């Protein structure tokens, strides 16, 4: 099998497997929901730092004039799954893959916090922009960030795998 085809087959298999794992109700209830609740708490904390008076209940961030619920699709898991599938499908040492997964996931979650915080602020102060930012712009930025991280990481793997030319 060509390396390119192999990458796609493994990528697709990992995407479907991770989706099935995340979609199983016990995993959703015991892992995804509490994780999303943590994102809501962090979003509330960031908003309080900016002077907003908000309270967090479960996955909801409420304040005077705006209220958002952070749900599946807003918790950054989709970008992490794309990154995980691409990194695992790419030929590289497992240690390097693991490092990329950890560093990339942390980076994506930090970016996602910027997304959720900014979406609350847009809903409150520029509600006309909220819908397009929520449904398309931020979603795309997050996945593009995951792909850029993957491209940078994979190009470094290639450099380290290539044999050094004789002097």
């Amino acid at each position, binding site marked *: 099998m060509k390396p390119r085809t192999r990458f796609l087959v493994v*990528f697709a298999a990992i995407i479907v497997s991770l*989706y099935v794992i995340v979609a199983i109700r016990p995993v959703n209830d015991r892992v995804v929901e509490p994780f999303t609740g943590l994102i809501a708490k962090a979003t509330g904390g960031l908003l309080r730092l900016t002077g907003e008076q908000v309270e967090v209940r479960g996955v909801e961030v409420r304040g005077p004039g705006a209220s958002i619920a952070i749900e599946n*699709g807003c918790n950054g898991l*989709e970008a992490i*799954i794309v990154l995980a599938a691409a990194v695992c499908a790419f030929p590289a040492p497992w240690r390097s893959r693991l490092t990329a997964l950890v560093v990339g996931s942390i980076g994506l979650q930090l970016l996602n916090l910027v997304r959720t915080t900014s979406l609350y602020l847009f809903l409150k102060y520029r509600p006309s922009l909220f819908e*397009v930012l929520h449904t*398309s*712009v931020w979603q795309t930025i997050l996945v593009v960030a995951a792909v850029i991280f993957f491209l*940078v990481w994979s190009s470094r793997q290639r450099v380290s795998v290539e044999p050094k030319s004789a002097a």
Partner: protein
Amino acid sequence: MNRNQLLKGSVGFALGLVLWLAAGPAYHSIVATATQQVFRLAENPNVTQLQPSGNDVILNRTDFDSRSPRPQIPVRDLTFNVILLLTLLAAAGPPLRLRYGGRWITALFALFAVHVAALTAKVMTLYVLRLGAWSQANYGSVARNFWSGADHFYRFIGIYAAAFVIWWIARLDDTEKEPKPARNRRRKG
């Protein structure tokens, strides 16, 4: 990934966003028409009618009670990955030259086919789950799980994975990349 690619990616992102916002209603009308043709192939009699309405599609079966409300499907939520695909193609895809035009057209057509499949799954999800006793009477648990699973998978992760896979296939790999033109070296006389 260098500065030039980041710049190209940003242009691709902006272009994709503007195209998606400005040409959305026209594009969604084409997707709705193509999806209706898919239902024409599978249905007998042909009862599914998909009427474009801005960025939505109104599902209007000819056998619906004329007094019942018509379900409305927001197609925008299914097609915004065109922004992602254009960003990836612009940043790290085939060069924008006539020679590679086929790759660009094939990639965009593949995404169009994905959008038709996504709308088909969405309409089928409405049929198998949302029409009360009619859904229960006409579809079994296998159909319910298959179509609702396909729709959920696409909306959660498939929408991004599809754009990624299309870009990955369209991009040039290392063996296909054009060699940089050699500089003319002047010989010292």
